[in-house]
Every structure is written in structure tokens, then in C-alpha cells.
């Protein structure tokens, strides 16, 4: 019961603040609502017993990426843009795309439900939800045993991104 209440609270918070991110005129308000949406997603990770991702989400997204966003909003002068129309003229194309994407998902979901046996999802058996305990230890072991090469590639990607960001933002290279 408590689990359900937690999920629906965080889910509705995430959807409402995501909607506000897209519709607000002021970019700072959008950033604040994006922080709320990311924190709600972190809550959903915690509710799913993914404690490590919960902490990573808060430290990296809310603490790192959002600070970067707010810094850039302060550096870039948005006063002129705030007085101009915020939406382009592709609204109907966007709604059509969104409709097609959601329609596709819902169709796939219900067709697989009909084809599968009762509560199966996409033909997968409804596995017993096991607690992945201890979460952080399991992630560490898998990351450094099975995903060593992707891990190193990710570190190179971060290095390249760091150099790229410095070169971009520097006045004279």
C-alpha cells in the first residue's frame, strides 16, 4: 500500500514537472522544474530498490548537470528571447509524432498482452521480483567483471567531452 502511494506520488510529480519544463517561458523556471522531475525520478529508482542509481541520479544529475544548466542560463542573456514567441510553428507535427509514438507503444503492449499468457509482458515471463541485494555491491561486481571494456570506453568519452567543452567555451584556442 505504502509502496503504491509512493510510486503514484513520484510518477505524478515527474509528469507534472516535465510538462511544466516544456511549457514555461522563463528558462530558470524550466530548470527548477527539471530538477523536480529528476528528483521524482530518483524517488522512483529508490522505490524500485535501485539505491545506487538513486544516489548517482541525485549527485550527478541534480548536483552536476543542473548546476551546469543554471550556469549557462546565467551566462547567456535570455531577456531578448523571453519576449519572443516560445514555440515554433511545428506544433501539429510534434503532436502527430507524439501521437504516433504513444500509439505504437500502446498497440505493441496490448498485442503482446493478447498473444502472451495472461500477465506476460512482451512475451517475457512475469518473473518473481527479486531484491537485488546488496545493490551497490552487485553493480560494482558486474561493472568491473562483465562491463570492463564499456566502462573504459565511457571514461574515454568523458575525457573527450571534457576537452571538447573546454575548447568550445574558451575565448581563444
Amino acid at each position: 500500500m505504502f509502496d503504491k502511494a509512493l510510486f503514484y506520488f513520484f510518477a505524478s510529480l515527474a509528469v507534472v514537472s516535465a510538462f511544466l519544463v516544456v511549457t514555461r517561458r522563463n528558462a530558470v523556471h524550466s530548470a527548477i522544474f527539471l530538477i523536480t522531475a529528476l528528483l521524482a525520478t530518483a524517488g522512483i529508482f529508490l522505490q524500485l530498490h535501485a539505491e545506487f542509481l538513486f544516489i548517482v541520479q541525485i549527485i550527478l544529475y541534480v548536483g552536476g548537470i543542473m548546476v551546469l544548466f543554471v550556469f549557462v542560463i546565467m551566462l547567456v542573456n535570455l531577456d531578448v528571447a523571453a519576449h519572443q514567441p516560445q514555440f515554433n510553428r511545428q506544433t501539429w507535427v510534434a503532436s502527430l509524432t507524439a501521437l504516433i509514438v504513444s500509439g505504437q507503444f500502446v498497440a505493441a503492449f496490448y498485442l503482446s498482452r493478447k498473444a502472451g499468457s495472461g500477465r506476460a509482458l512482451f512475451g517475457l515471463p512475469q518473473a518473481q521480483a527479486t531484491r537485488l541485494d546488496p545493490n551497490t555491491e552487485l553493480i560494482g561486481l558486474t561493472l568491473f567483471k562483465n562491463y570492463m571494456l564499456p566502462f573504459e570506453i565511457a571514461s574515454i568519452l568523458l575525457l573527450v567531452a571534457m576537452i571538447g567543452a573546454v575548447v568550445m567555451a574558451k575565448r581563444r584556442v
Partner: protein
Amino acid sequence: MIPTSHYLFLSLALFTIGVIGVLTRRNVIIILMSIELILNAVNINLVAFSRMLGNVNGQIFAIFVITDAAAEAAVGLGIIIAFFRNRPTVLADEMDILKW
């Protein structure tokens, strides 16, 4: 116990809102924020499936997605600052030249 499909529908809602943001907003900073929303929706899917199957690999993939999001945000915001220095606008439909 919440069925996995509820997580999928939540993720679908966030993804769709992000797509609409990318396609309709003119401010590039908010377009980047919408991309972050889309990546978050993918993460919810991965973690929900990881829990449903009792397999930690989905959470590892979510960590890689977060890494990519950090790299993308750093480079994207660097490009916005570099562009703004040359031409003071943040509206995506006014960014229509490569050289000046």
C-alpha cells in the same frame, strides 16, 4: 507490488513530453533540457525491467546512459556559449548559418 507496465506507461509519458519539447520549443537550452527528460524516461524503463527480471544489467546500462547525458550536456552547453559569443541569440530557428 506495482506491475511493470505502470513504469512503462510513466516512461512513455515522460518520453512523449520530451519529444514534444524538442520539436516545438525555440530556446536551445530548453531543447537540451527536453533531451535530458527523454534520457530519464529511458532510465526508468531500464531499471523497471532490471527489477522485473531480477538482473542487475539494466542498472549498469542506466549508469552508462547517465554518463552519456553528462557528456552531452557539457558539450552542448559549450557549443551554446561559443555560439552566443558570435551571435547573441538562443533561438534555434535563428541559428541558420555555419560561417560568418
